[in-house]
């Protein structure tokens, strides 16, 4: 067979395969799509067929940003979903109620949480219940916590 035995195929040492030569934007231009790539070593005719498939329609580019969710912000950060009411998923205020929540997170665990918080903070909260200016509403709440013990 004539010709250089190294000709054709994907050459790992070629400039386009050097990672240092790939641009920060992915090297696929500014179209947001990925280029067609010839895959060698396939049975006769299939490589050409695959190439034709790749060039028949633009292929979507790599997604921007982290795939597995965005980094959680703090409680006071602006919302990432301004069209959704902050009370969505809660049975009060605007938006859908708790019936939209998955079943595994809609269990009411408030009583258990309340008991844990009462045990942890009640001694501190009790200190303010006897101040002369303490509002009755605060005293009523402390009495409620005392009943929960």
């Amino acid at each position: 067979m004539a010709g250089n035995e190294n000709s054709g195929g994907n050459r790992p040492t070629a400039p386009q395969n050097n990672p240092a030569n790939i641009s920060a934007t992915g090297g696929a231009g500014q179209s947001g799509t990925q280029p067609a790539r010839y895959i060698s070593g396939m049975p006769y005719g299939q490589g050409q067929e695959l190439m034709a498939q790749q060039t028949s329609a633009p292929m979507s580019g790599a997604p921007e940003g982290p795939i597995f969710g965005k980094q959680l912000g703090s409680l006071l950060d602006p919302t990432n979903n301004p069209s959704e009411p902050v009370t969505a998923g809660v049975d009060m205020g605007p938006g859908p109620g708790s019936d939209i929540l998955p079943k595994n997170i809609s269990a009411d665990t408030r009583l258990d949480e309340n008991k844990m918080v009462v045990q942890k903070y009640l001694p501190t909260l009790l200190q303010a219940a006897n101040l002369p200016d303490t509002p009755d509403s605060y005293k009523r709440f402390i009495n409620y916590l005392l009943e929960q013990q």
Partner: protein
Amino acid sequence: MSRVAWLPGSLFDNVDKFANSLGYQNAAIAIELAMQSWESPEDRNAFIYAITGDNIQGGTESKYPIRNLGR
């Protein structure tokens, strides 16, 4: 011993406003929210108003007027 006063915007005041606005059944989340470092009582009240859609409850004594944010 110095006299301890009930101050608007203090932890205890925050507990009072959150617990009475969110309901006693939400005591745990009310206390956790009360421990956040709110910039001011007005900032805290605006947050309560945003999540309840109602005026702030608790601490109705004349010394501590509740700002009616209105609709």
